[in-house]
């Protein structure tokens, strides 16, 4: 669906140093995937989306979107993808229906009225369809802009921060809508700062800051950065058990924290039952066992920290 090879965009501004917004980006996004593009402000996320939707041309490198090469088949690319731009850019003086109808026509949608109604209803804007968009709240505008991106039923959708600036309720609504779109089999390229959102929605995540730093499933990113950790809550800890646990093949580290033992290991599915049996047989009172999950936020911050250190080194 998306394929990039050393995609690079350098903004040249008169009388100031060049801005390398995107450098050597190589990635591929498969059909049906929800790909999360994660990065701080100014990382080049929007710039990447603009290149992949043929809005701006790359400085060097190449990209293929839906099989069409960026820079050569721009018209085909524009026709076949949907985009939620960073700012909704709606026509404020015109009604919601009118806004969508304009785009339906520009995308050569066959049944304009039907598609417009379908998406206005789906996003809960039908009752406000004739109001000028200028009177809409930020969340409503965002929903309308999402509807606009879907009118021509694109298989590939670019969403540039779909929930930024929305209240938790509206954000959840948008998220579940994105989920729904993904279940319909659409491929989604999602730019976001919201790490929970990325964690919940995305099959794979690319952590990006001008360059691609990490790319993997959220699960693997966790493992890669922190390994997997299991916490054993015991009534009290006997120091001997620590050594016993360390003796298991596959256990990397055991750390006592209060009445807990935090065990880093490769495959908890196999090791947990063995460790629990050993602990029970040694007379430990096992109260709870659970996996210690790092939030994506920790992963993200850790990655950024490491990148910075590398940069300084």
């Amino acid at each position, binding site marked *: 669906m998306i394929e990039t090879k050393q995609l690079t965009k350098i903004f040249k501004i008169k009388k100031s140093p060049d801005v390398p917004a995107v450098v050597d980006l190589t990635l591929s996004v498969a059909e049906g995937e929800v790909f999360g593009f994660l990065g701080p402000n100014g990382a080049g996320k929007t710039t990447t989306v603009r290149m992949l939707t043929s809005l701006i041309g790359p400085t060097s490198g190449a990209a293929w979107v839906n099989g069409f090469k960026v820079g050569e088949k721009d018209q085909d690319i524009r026709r076949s993808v949907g985009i939620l731009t960073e700012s909704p850019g709606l*026509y404020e003086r015109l009604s919601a229906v009118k806004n969508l109808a304009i785009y339906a026509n520009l995308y050569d949608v066959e049944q304009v009225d039907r598609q417009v109604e379908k998406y206005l209803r789906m996003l809960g804007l039908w009752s406000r369809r004739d109001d000028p968009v200028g009177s809409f709240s930020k969340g409503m505008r965002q929903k309308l802009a999402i509807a606009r991106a879907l009118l021509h039923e694109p298989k590939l959708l670019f969403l540039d921060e779909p929930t930024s600036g929305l209240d938790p309720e509206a954000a959840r609504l948008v998220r579940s809508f994105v989920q729904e779109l993904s279940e319909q089999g659409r491929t989604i390229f999602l730019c976001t700062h919201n790490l929970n959102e990325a964690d919940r929605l995305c099959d794979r995540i690319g952590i990006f800051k001008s360059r691609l730093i990490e790319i993997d499933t959220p699960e693997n990113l966790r493992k890669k950065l922190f390994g997997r950790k299991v916490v054993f809550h015991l009534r009290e800890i006997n120091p001997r058990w620590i050594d016993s646990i360390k003796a298991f093949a596959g256990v990397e580290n055991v750390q006592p924290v209060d009445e807990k033992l935090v065990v880093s290991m490769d495959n908890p599915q196999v090791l947990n039952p063995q460790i629990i049996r050993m602990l029970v047989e040694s007379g430990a009172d096992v109260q709870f066992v659970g996996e210690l999950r790092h939030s994506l936020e920790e992963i993200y911050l850790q990655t950024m920290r490491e990148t910075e250190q590398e940069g300084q080194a």
Partner: protein
Amino acid sequence: MMKHIKTIVGKEWAEVFKNRMVLFTLIFMPLIFTILPLAMLYFTGQGMDEMASVTTADVPAEFLSVCGEGMGANECMQIYVVNQFLLLFMMIPVIIPVTIAAYSVVGEKTTHSLEPLLATPITTFELLAGKSLAAALPAIIVGWAAFGLFLGALPLIGVTRAVFAYIASPTWLLAIFVAGPLMAIAAVNLAIFISSRVNDPRTAEQISALLIIPILGLLFAQLAGVIVINVMVMMSFIGGMALLDVGMVYLGTTIFQRETILTRWK
């Protein structure tokens, strides 16, 4: 292709006609430009009657060639006066579209609506054609309507047949029906071109309004007696405008770069 252009035109009109400033320009300017010459003609006619002493000597010598044989001095004077106003009529198709077009690209830039628009499969030509037509058509139609009103009102203020015949002559008709639309096209393209380079609609408007300079040039040249606007002058003017139009449309579509417009903020 036509569908895309029509969509853009419809969109522009839906927006533009909600803008009071534009509506005001669209209605009042042509009205003023129609009433003014009518009033002048009326008072020139009246004044002449009272002091019948006006002779052909009062009319600039260069202008006598325009007045037909056997035309009275006051008729000739009226024609001289009204000829200045012809140039006002020609300003209608310049000023109106500039107001509309100046907002068309800059406006979309400032509201960020240009980005989703450029992300659609619309071609640059379709976009420019739609925006140009949306700005030029109302101006051309209003210009013609104003001229129609003017012609219709002429008998009411009692101009002579000779004067009427002069106004409904090839020079005027060419000016209104050919030069006007050509100027509108040039004005619109200039406004769009400029508005894609600047970020403030007012600047775009002001720079594009420079296009009335050639008209003012003609006006002053005539007032100063350097030239007389007749069919020949009008034809040359039209020729020049046509060339300018071709150049502008070509320049517009080649220079209008989607990326630059989206990313350059200067």
